[in-house]
C-alpha cells in the first residue's frame, strides 16, 4: 500500500476545465452536485474506471491527462439516460462525446478499442460515404484482435445464411466532393 494518492496542484490544468466548458456538453458542469444519478442510470458505468460523476469532478479539478486517458469515456453507449435524468440539466452524453473528441484529436488512448473502432468506422464513411456492416466488422477486428475473427465466424455464417450480410459493396456516387467536404471540416478542428 503506497498510501493516499496526492495530486500536486501544479500538475492540474484549470484551462482544461475552461476548455471543456466551452464545448458541447460542457456548459453546465459547474452546476453538478455530484449526486451520481448519471452513473446510477448508466448501463455501462459498472465497467468504467471512473464513473461519469467522477469524470465531471476530475474535469473541474483540471485532471486533464487522467480524464483523456480514461477508459470510461469509450464505454459510453450513447443511450442518453444520464442526460434525461440529470437533476442539473447537464448534457452528459454530449460531454462524453466532447471528451472523446479531445482524446482522439490529441491521440490519447489511441490503442484502446474505442478510438480504433470509431476511427475505422469514420475512415470507411469518408471513403465510401456509407457503411457495409460486414466489411466494417472484419476490418475492425483485424485491426484489434485478428484471432477473434474465428469466434465471430458462426454468427457471420448465420447472418449470411439469413441473407443479412450484403456482399455487394455499398457506396455513394458523389464521393469526390463528399471526401473534400469531410476533409475540410476535419481540418477546422474541434
Amino acid at each position, binding site marked *: 500500500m503506497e498510501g493516499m494518492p496526492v495530486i500536486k496542484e501544479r500538475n492540474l490544468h484549470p484551462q482544461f476545465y475552461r476548455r471543456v466548458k466551452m464545448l458541447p456538453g460542457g456548459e453546465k458542469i459547474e452546476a453538478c*452536485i*455530484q*449526486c*451520481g*444519478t*448519471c*452513473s*446510477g*442510470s*448508466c448501463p455501462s*458505468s*459498472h465497467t*468504467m474506471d*471512473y*464513473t461519469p*460523476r*467522477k469524470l465531471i469532478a476530475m474535469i473541474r479539478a483540471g485532471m486533464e491527462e487522467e480524464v483523456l486517458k480514461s477508459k470510461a469515456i469509450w464505454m459510453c453507449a450513447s443511450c442518453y439516460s444520464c442526460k434525461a*435524468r*440529470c*437533476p*442539473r*440539466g447537464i448534457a452528459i452524453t454530449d460531454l462524453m462525446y466532447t471528451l472523446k473528441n479531445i482524446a482522439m484529436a490529441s491521440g490519447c488512448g489511441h490503442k484502446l478499442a474505442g478510438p480504433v473502432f470509431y476511427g475505422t468506422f469514420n475512415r470507411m464513411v469518408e471513403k465510401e460515404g456509407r457503411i457495409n456492416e460486414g466489411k466494417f466488422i472484419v476490418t475492425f477486428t483485424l485491426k484489434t484482435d485478428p484471432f477473434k475473427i474465428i469466434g465471430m465466424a458462426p454468427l457471420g455464417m448465420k447472418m449470411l445464411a439469413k441473407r443479412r450480410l450484403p456482399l455487394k459493396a455499398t457506396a455513394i456516387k458523389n464521393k469526390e466532393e463528399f471526401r473534400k467536404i469531410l476533409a475540410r471540416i476535419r481540418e477546422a478542428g474541434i
Partner: protein
Amino acid sequence: MAENIGVYVCHCGSNIAAVVDCEKIAQAASEWDNVVIARDYKYMCSDPGQNLIKKDIEEYGLTRVVVASCSPRMHEPTFRKTLEEAGLNGYLLEMANIREHCSWVSKDKEAATEKAIALTRGAVRRVVLHQPIKEREVPVNKATLVVGGGIAGIQAALQIANAGYPVYLVEKKPSIGGHMAQFDKTFPTLDCAACILTPKMVDVDRNQNIKLFTCSEVVEVDGYVGNFKVKVRKKPRYVDEEACTGCGDCESACVMKNRIPSEFEVGLGKRSAVYIPFPQAVPLKAAVDEENCLYLKKGKCKQSCVDACQREAIDFEQREEIVELEVGAIILATGFEIFDPSVGPQWGYGIYDNVITGLQFERITNASGPTGGKVLLKDGSEPKKVAILHCIGSRDENYNKYCSRVCCMSSVKFAHLVKEKTDAEVYEFYIDMRTFGKQYEEFYNRVQEEGVHFIRGKGAEVTEIGGELTVRAEDSLLGVYREIPVDLVILNTALVPCSDSEKVSQIFGVSRAESGFFLESHIKLDPISTTNQGIYLAGCCQSPKDIPDTVAQGSAAAAGALAAIATGKVTTSPISASVNEDICSGCKTCLNMCAYKAITFDENKKVAEINEAVCKGCGTCAATCPSGAITNSHFTTEQIFAQIEGVCENG
C-alpha cells in the same frame, strides 16, 4: 421649480465605499440645480446619519431629500421617518440604490461611480416633482380568517383565539389535522405525532373563539386590510353535525365498506362512503363522500347507514351553502402536497408493489395504520433489506429545483423506525445530508450508530433483477456503481405546492414564487407577510418546512395579525392609483387588469373608479390606461420621466 434639496451619500461602511467613490458623488451633486447641500457619510441609517439630515432640513430649509444608499426596500421607511421628524412629509424623499445596483454588482470603480452619479442625478430630478402624500389609517375588524387546518393553521388559530379574538378556521377536508395527523413519530425527539397534535386539535374544537368550518373552501375575497369580506363555500357533509356522535355505526353499515381507498391511509387502507377520516378526527363526525356514495351518485342504495344511525344524523337533503364572513386579517396555511413519483418510472413507483412513498411509510409504521404499525411488505412478510431514497422530485430540474428540507431528517427517522421494528438492513441513498436543526445532527448521529448504511449517491433507478427489487446508484464516496438488492424501497418524495395553489393565489391576491409556493413579502425580514397587506402565510404553503418551523411560522403569522387587531387600525400605503374623470373616456381597458379588484366602473358617469383602500399602487392600470386618465401617485409619468432623463443625461 425651485426646491432646496439635500443629497446624502452613504458609504454603508465598505459595502458601497469600497467600490463607489462616495465623495465624488456628493461633489457632483453639489453642482446640480436645486441641490443646496450634498454630503457623504459612513452610515446614513445610523442615528448620527439621520440627525445630520434633520439638522440640514432645519438649517438649510430643505424641502426635498435624496439618499443614495442601499435598496429602498431596506431603509425607505427609516428615512421617511427621519423627514417626518424634521417636519417634512416623508414622501418628499427619493432614494438612489447605489449598493445593490452599483457597488455589489461591479468591480470597476470608475464605472460603478459613474453609474451611482447617474442614479443619484435621476433621484434629484425626480424628487423635485414629488408631492407630499399622507398615509391612511383604516379601522380593523377584530376577526381573523385562518385557511387550512393543518398544524400551521391550528397553531395560528389557537394563538389568536387565546389572545381573546375571534377566528374562523376553514378546512377543505372533513377533519383538521393536516399531514401531521398522518405521521407516526416526529424527529428529532420521536414523540408520536398524534400525541402532540391531537391535544391542539381538541383545543381548536373547544375554544369558544374559534369557529371551525370543515368541508369548506374560500371562494371569494373582497375588500382590503382590516376589512376583508370573505365568502366560504360550505359543502354538504350529509351528516347533521349536532346529532352525530362519531360512533362509526354508519361507517360499518355502509354498502361500500372497505371498498374505497382511504386518503388518510394514502391508498394503503380502505374506507366506506360514509366515514370518519381517522380515529382522532376533529370534529369527530362522519361525512359522506359524494363521489363514492351510491345513493348520492346513482340514487340507488338501501341506505343502510340511515338505518344504522340511532341519532338519525344522516341527512341527504343537506345542500351546499355560502357563508359570508367579515375579517380584518387572513392567514393562509394551506399546506402542501406530496410529489407523485410515478411520473419518473425509473423509481418504479406504481410498477413494483414494494416501492412506496415516505408518507405511505408513515402510515405503515403508525400503530393506527393499515398494518397496525408493523413494517411489512405487500405479501405480509417482514423486509430484510430496505432502501430509502432521498430527493425524489426535489433538487431536480426535471421536477422541482428546490430542496424539500424535511426529507433528510424524515429519511433518517424512517431508518430508525425500520431498525426499531425489524432486523432489516437499511440503506439510505442521499446526495447531501442536511440535518441542520436543533438536535438534528445528534439524531443523525444516533441513527448512524444504529448501523444504517448511508450511501452518498442518489438512487438513480429501482428495478427488478431476477425477481428482486434492486436499487442502482453510484456510491460517490467510493466512486463505484452499486446494485443493491432490497425488499422495500421508500421514496422520500418532494413537498410540492398544492395543486390548487394558483387558484388560491388568485382568490387571495397573493403572488407565487417560481416554485409555485406562495411568495412572502421579504424572504428574510418578513417571511410571514405577503404583498397583499393583511394576508399572512404560515407553514408549507410558503415553502417546505418541518414541524418546528411550521409551528414557529404559525405563531409568527398570528402575531402579525394580532398586531393590527390589538391596535384596531392599520396604516396603508398612500401610493395608489386614481382616475381623472375629466379624461377617462370609459373604454374599460383597465378593468381586467387590476390584480386586487380595486377598479370598478361607474355606469352613470361612464368612468372607471378606483377604490384607493384596495389599490396596492402597483401601477398596472396606469400603464394600461390608453388615455392617460389614470395616475399612480408617487409614480407619475412626469416623475418617472424626470428620473429617466436625469439618469440618461451625460455629465
